[in-house]
């Protein structure tokens, strides 16, 4: 708390990069560990398989990055992903054409996101609560549509599941990888190169200030959740390419992996700061951990959840530390800043006078 001074200020941008630098180091350490422990771990195909196995998570992380930078949090992504696989499988069983199925799934996901966004902005429901409701709602719809697993036997989906695209050197990836990379590219373009992208950061840094500056806060908040819903639906389609089935329990707890990936990638949970490619780094860290667990073979699958939770915790703690330092540096001693975090759960001082009685 005593680091206020020109020196401390100059170090600020470095601190912003601290989180993802740590993640990159972690990724390298994980790979070195894998190389020592398991012969054949560091090979081109294993690295490519990280992308193949986590294509859906990359897409989820892109949507979640938008939401988190805007100062929100989307708890519904796992449920929307599950709902998408169930809708896709159910419609394909009813002999819909794959193109129509994909369009319907994407529309449903975007519509759910739209509802969440409208609820948050126009009804001022807390973002967490709104997405939590959406999470339960989508999961319930899964059970309503089909409590049992539906196998997908559509030729197009089968083709997407089995197709292997050569990338040279005798290595192959599934078609999901280019789809995921396209989403990343689109996400980077929108977030870092468009006006809308800048408004997402502005909203995350302080909704009221942004709105006073004339930033279209309402449109931005709603769009951010639409993007997240769309990404979750697309991830659901990629997931059904991957598993060739629709099941109502698909993706339970996936919101944790997604949020963990985003946070590991250096996006600050309170919003307003972060990079999209950092989230991809986060996905790769989680993917490598899972690959190590698979390579080991003796560890139960539950370890991947525990480790994802632990990593999320560690990186959240790192962020708190950095934020606290930064606040001390900028001379502010108030625990509340006019940011979205404050808006969401700490400040809202006016509410004290809002109760009746």
């Amino acid at each position, binding site marked *: 708390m005593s680091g206020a001074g020109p020196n401390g200020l100059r170090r600020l941008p470095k601190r912003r990069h601290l989180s993802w630098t740590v993640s990159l180091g972690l990724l390298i350490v994980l790979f070195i560990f894998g190389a020592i422990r398991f012969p054949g771990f560091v090979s081109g195909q294993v690295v490519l398989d990280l992308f193949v196995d986590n294509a859906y998570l990359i897409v989820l992380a892109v949507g979640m990055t938008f939401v988190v930078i805007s100062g929100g949090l989307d708890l519904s992504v796992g449920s929307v992903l599950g709902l998408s696989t169930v809708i896709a499988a159910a419609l394909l069983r009813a002999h819909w054409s794959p193109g129509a199925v994909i369009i319907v799934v994407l529309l449903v996901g975007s519509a759910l996101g739209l509802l969440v966004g409208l609820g948050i902005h126009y009804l001022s429901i807390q973002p967490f609560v709104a997405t939590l409701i959406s999470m339960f709602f989508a999961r319930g719809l899964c059970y309503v549509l089909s409590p049992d697993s539906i196998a997908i036997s559509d030729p197009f989906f089968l083709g997407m599941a089995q197709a292997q695209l050569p990338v040279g050197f005798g290595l192959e990836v599934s078609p999901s990888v280019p789809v995921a990379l396209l989403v990343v590219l689109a996400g980077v373009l929108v977030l870092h190169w468009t006006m809308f992208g800048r408004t997402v950061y502005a909203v995350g840094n302080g909704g009221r200030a942004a709105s006073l500056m004339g930033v279209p806060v309402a449109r931005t908040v709603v769009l951010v959740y639409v993007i997240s819903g769309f990404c979750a639906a697309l991830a659901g389609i990629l997931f059904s390419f991957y598993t060739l089935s629709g099941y109502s329990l698909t993706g339970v707890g996936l919101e944790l992996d997604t949020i963990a990936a985003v946070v590991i990638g250096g996006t600050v949970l309170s919003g307003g700061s972060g990079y999209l490619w950092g989230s991809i780094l986060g996905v790769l860290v989680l993917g490598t951990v899972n690959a190590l667990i698979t390579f080991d073979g003796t560890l139960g699958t539950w370890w991947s959840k525990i480790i994802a939770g632990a990593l999320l915790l560690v990186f959240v703690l790192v962020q708190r530390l950095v934020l606290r330092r930064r606040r001390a540096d900028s001379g502010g001693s108030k625990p509340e800043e006019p940011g979205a975090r404050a808006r969401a759960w700490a400040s809202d001082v*006016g509410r004290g*006078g809002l109760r009746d009685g």
Partner: protein
Amino acid sequence: MKNLLAARLTWPVVALAALLLLNFVLQPNFFSIRVQDGHLYGSLIDIVRNGAPTVLVALGMTLVIATRGLDLSVGSIVAIAGAVACSILASSGSEANVPVVIVAVAAALAAALVLGAWNGFLVAVVGIPPIVATLILMTAGRGLALLITQGQIVTVSSAAYRVIGAGFALGLPVSILIAAVIYAAAALLTRKTALGMLIDAVGVNPIASRIAGVPVKGINWSVYAFSGLCAGVAGLMISSNVTAADSNSAGLWIELDAILAVVIGGTPVGGGRFSLSGTLVGAFIIQTLTATAYTAGIAPGVMLVLKAIVVAAVCVMQAPRVRSRAQRRVPSRPRAGVRS
């Protein structure tokens, strides 16, 4: 003040009465309670007994929500408590032994209390948003429960352990008595001491409370610990009732039921002014709804959708107030008066 309190409870009670009446129409013997071997049996007793875990979890959740928090990890703590107790019993070799059961129960409750305190630590001391802090335990906690049971469903056959969830005492199911005792203790502590007012204060305005000398951190910490403990007791009831620990499905979606009970009971989602009696009515509404759906043959999935819609509806009903008051304080009063 009394009118207001009455108004807040009126609608939940009316809804509960309507549900009970509907059940009476569906099954004319719904209200009949018969005595068999000195134990009370009947649909109503079943609803209260099956509702005991929900009541407990909702009780903890009420206090957490009252401080502007949210505890998503209750379902996982339910699973962990069951897993701890059943693993100890199964590995002891003498599970019929009462001291062994007591040790197992104590260990499970201690684990639940520690996990609740852990949530409280993250929220109150470290300052992580409640949703994120408890989300970590919500998902990683299921992993922990699976780790404890090694991914298996651990079954036990201890008669002494079965008492918690399926036994009878004084003619009533033991789980009802346990829930009643904990509920009464919480009600006494919050309403007969200043604790309830302090919790309200933290929820209404944490900053003002801190400045006024309310131990905000301590209160935050203890409500999460209490919520964890309640979830632990609920977990013991659930696993004892089925004489097994199922780490995957024990307590799954119970956080939704709990949040729903709190919200129906009139505690605002945004914190402050909690109502324990409202939560109790809310929990019984949910349990009756579940029982009704069961008799009417409605799929559980439909219930999940319905519950989500109800929470959304209540949130929306609360929203215009928040908005109109946020814009200007003066005209909000008459409007709120009209509403309630």
